[in-house]
């Protein structure tokens, strides 16, 4: 079975530009998570979905970040306008609530550099 697929793997763009990160979760997983990893803050949860609905977005800067899950097999994380402090590795992860089948499965991440 294919794992969590993220694209692009790397993104370099200039400050002020719109950035869209994409994620395809594992088929059958009804939870999807977006994390951001930086040296200073470590791994932070930005937002997560259950059955396509946002369950918790308290970790996401609302003024410039938006996350969507239009269907069960696709999610996007958009940053507009981007800023240098958004430079980080962004991970998508998916899971299903099965007590014996945790934990979350991670994608390979997108390394985002904002110049």
């Amino acid at each position, binding site marked *: 079975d294919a794992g969590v697929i993220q694209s692009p793997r790397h993104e370099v763009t200039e400050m002020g530009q719109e950035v869209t990160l994409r994620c395809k979760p594992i088929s059958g997983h009804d*939870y999807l*998570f977006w994390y951001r990893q930086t040296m200073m803050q*470590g*791994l932070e*949860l930005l937002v*997560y979905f*259950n059955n396509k609905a946002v*369950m*918790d977005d308290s970790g996401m800067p609302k003024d410039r970040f938006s996350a969507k899950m239009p269907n069960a097999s696709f999610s996007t994380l958009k940053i507009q306008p981007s800023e240098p402090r958004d430079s980080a*590795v962004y*991970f998508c*992860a998916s*899971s299903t*609530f099965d*007590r014996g089948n*945790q*934990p*979350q499965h*991670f994608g*390979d*991440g997108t*390394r985002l550099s904002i110049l």
Partner: protein
Amino acid sequence: AQTVTQSQPEMSVQEAETVTLSCTYDTSESDYYLFWYKQPPSRQMILVIRQEAYKQQNATENRFSVNFQKAAKSFSLKISDSQLGDAAMYFCAWWVIQGAQKLVFGQGTRLTINP
């Protein structure tokens, strides 16, 4: 708030020897999971081992084992017969069974294996 603390930013060990990575957590929940994830330079997040809080027996996976002390809220990872491929960042993470379906990560420990 639930927190996970890894007090050792860096550790090193000679190849073939044993090393123990520390993790403590703070929660009032009684039903939860604990995990160790490995992140090699390729930046993949790879599950190493997991422990269910209600199980008293410590989890083991080949050369990896944990020392789970629930009362002390301690969850250390022991790597036996260290191999060069074990070099990575190691993250301790906590997940509660009920409620918000999100992992809380520690800051990580960078493990170096000396040949």
